[in-house]
């Protein structure tokens, strides 16, 4: 069986993912998500 990926790699990747997410927050992306999610998405439900 193939050797497992070491935990260290997962932790480093997790830190990188958190950093990417944080940059997105600083760029104001959660506001864009909120604007879409808080009202009816007509495209999603098949009307728009």
């Amino acid at each position: 069986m193939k050797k497992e990926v070491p935990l260290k790699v997962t932790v480093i990747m997790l830190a990188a993912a958190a950093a990417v997410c944080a940059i997105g927050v600083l760029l104001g992306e959660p506001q864009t998500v909120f604007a879409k999610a808080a009202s009816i998405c007509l495209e999603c439900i098949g009307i728009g």
Partner: protein
Amino acid sequence: MGKYRRKAVQVVWAALTNGFVKGFLPGTPNLYSGPLKHFCVPGLNCYSCPGALGACPIGALQAVYTDRHRGAGLYVLGYLAAVGLLAGRFICGWLCLFGLIQELLYKIPTPKIRVPERIDRKLRYLKYAVLALLVVGLPFFYRDAFGSGVPFFCEYLCPAGTLEGGIPLVLLNKSLRAGLGALFRWKVFLLALFVLSSIFIYRPFCKYLCPLGAFYALFQKVSLVRMRVDEGACIDCGACEKACHMNVAPCRTPNSGECIRCGECMEACPVKALSFGTGLRKKERIKEETV
């Protein structure tokens, strides 16, 4: 026992993340618009579901790409990568509402279909194409005459949006019924197709088309939650492979991108050679053994 535990987790999670009861009252559409909608739930759960308390990650990613001030989607991508690194497709098996719905449909007692391996293997790649084209590529690059993008996956494919958002909203609100047209009919047709096929095939949307499952599958081999095979104990009886509805052979490929971590193989193993583990636990075990 384990099977019921997973079902209980799935149901409780679905209720918790869709607990905005006011949204289900008939009259004017009334979606939850509080601060929780800034955050994504880990599974596929339409944010236009009347009860939804969080945002759908696939919808959220497209929302950022189709916005006039198009973003890179770092917030959602980073979040999804973190969830994938922590749990991989464990999310699909335990915390996805649309996955739960398909599983319940599969429980309807009818003869079941096992898609021939040759076809099944090819179809599995479709979900990666859906992720690359309908969720990322087209929403990011395509712009209409007014400069707006189109959330291709949500608009033309996602059956979860029709089932969890479209149909309840249309039933509850008269005003929305006036806007129904060809697109709604197309989406209802697709939904009917998935509902029907889910009765005969185990989680067909998850296997072949779900872009969220495709994204999490990329992290399956490096995620914290992993499956382990005790090679000394395994008697190679094939019971795990037989029990797996996702057509994985857990004793040979325990961290396959297709495994949704439902744990049915662990229950089926007569010698208990399969287990969930984390890198952390392995370290602890080594430590215990050396003491």
